[in-house]
């Protein structure tokens, strides 16, 4: 599928999700997301794994808001009370967050990340941004394994990783500095390699993508869905 259409559809959808605040519509977007999820055939474990890291702020908000926000008390526990507006806000945040992140995972993980960067370039992302992003993405894993090997080397020479104080900070700073120096040195060679094969010859990268009828249909469907949610939200808000 044409990644450009997929990206455009994704952005339209997630902004529509984050516009929704009516409870009936929250139910609808949740249902829609679940439908997408089952259509994608991704395992549930995959989503759960991805949800672990980012949800701390969401978790904190969802746990605190019902007790600190609003006037209508639903349940009085004496020193603390559960309030309706807060509960509403918590539900809103949780539902939108889940919908957006699940949709993003589904769409982005069906193709390598750099494909999406290339799609953005084809959609008019300035070349400096696009080239930087492609190179950054290309070398993330390389520098990541450099870091891993340096950490192993440190451990083999007796680094006490949990020793507190300046010693610990200094070894971290050295690690970080070594990564930067190695990165910059590598950049010199990468630039040479690129120049030797004609980089900067103001050759526009050829467009690798072709839009098919299916792509247009999917894009139209996502725009339509997003439009419906947005329209209904405005309608209900009136």
């Amino acid at each position, binding site marked *: 599928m044409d990644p450009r259409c997929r990206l455009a559809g994704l952005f339209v959808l997630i902004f529509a999700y984050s516009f929704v605040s009516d409870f009936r519509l929250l139910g609808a977007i949740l249902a829609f997301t679940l439908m997408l999820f089952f259509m994608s055939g991704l395992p549930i474990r995959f989503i759960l794994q991805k949800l672990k890291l980012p949800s701390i702020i969401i978790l904190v908000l969802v746990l605190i808001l019902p007790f600190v926000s609003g006037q209508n008390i639903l349940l009085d526990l004496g020193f603390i009370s559960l309030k309706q507006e807060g509960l509403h806000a918590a539900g809103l945040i949780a539902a939108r967050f889940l919908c957006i992140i699940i949709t993003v995972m589904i769409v982005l993980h069906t193709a*390598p990340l*750099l494909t999406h960067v290339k799609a953005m370039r084809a959609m008019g992302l300035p070349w400096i941004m696009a080239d930087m992003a*492609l*190179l950054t*993405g*290309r*070398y993330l*894993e*390389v520098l990541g*394994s450099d870091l891993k090997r340096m950490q192993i080397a440190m451990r083999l020479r007796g680094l006490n990783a949990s020793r507190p104080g300046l010693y610990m900070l200094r070894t971290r700073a050295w690690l970080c500095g070594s990564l930067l120096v190695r990165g910059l040195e*590598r950049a010199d*060679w*990468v630039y*040479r*390699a*690129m*120049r*030797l*094969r*004609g*980089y900067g*010859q103001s*050759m526009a*990268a*050829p467009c690798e993508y072709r839009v098919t009828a299916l792509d247009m249909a999917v894009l139209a469907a996502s725009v339509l869905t997003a439009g419906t949610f947005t329209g209904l939200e405005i309608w209900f808000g009136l």
Partner: protein
Amino acid sequence: MSVKSSSVLKAENVSFSYPGNGGTLHDINLGITRGEKVGIIGPNGAGKTTFFLLACGILRPVSGVIRLFEKPVTGSKFNPQAALVFQKPDDQLFCPTVREDVAFGPQNMGLDAQEVDRRAWEALYKVDAASLAERPVHHLSEGEKRMVSIATALAMHPGLIIYDEPSAYLDIRTRRRLITLMPGSAETIIVASHDLELVLEVCTRVILMDQGRIITQGDPAGIMGDETLMQAHGQEKPPSLVPHYYRHQH
């Protein structure tokens, strides 16, 4: 591609020094003609890589002129006639996948998409790496990376390929494949290597460099077999030139 000219690389009184460093190359004079396979040997820091960077126009000589295919090398112009295979393949492959990397050069030569594709596949088949085409570059083994980086050079159909220490980290099987591939990879090749056996098998002329100067040049077996000359410049006679080399140990 001037068919008549037979000089491929000509350096005249080339000197170079890195800023803040002493002289790195001193008064290099060198001519390489079409069809030659030239090996450059010499200790670490002799200036081999630096000379290659000058020849490709990445660095500019402090004095002297370098001509590639009879035209003076200027830094700004992209010359697909000369390709350089770097010492570290990791730095040479910068695209996300192998196929894209091999296609990068031909694309910048302004060829059409079909021709680009044809050349990329042809080069990949030559180095026997067609099965890797869609793999991300950073997941390849060191040997595979080396072969792919050679393919990126081959895809540009250069008249001259310069190899900078091509056999480091290769296992013996891959090194052997490299040795059989190199002579046919381009009309003219230049190899810098510490792997004297490789130079011996591939090259028709050898140049000995030390401390930024060309010490001597000539027939590979002749130069590398000259024990006193080799030892004076930190080299050793390669074992295959020493009959019954193996001394019994322990």
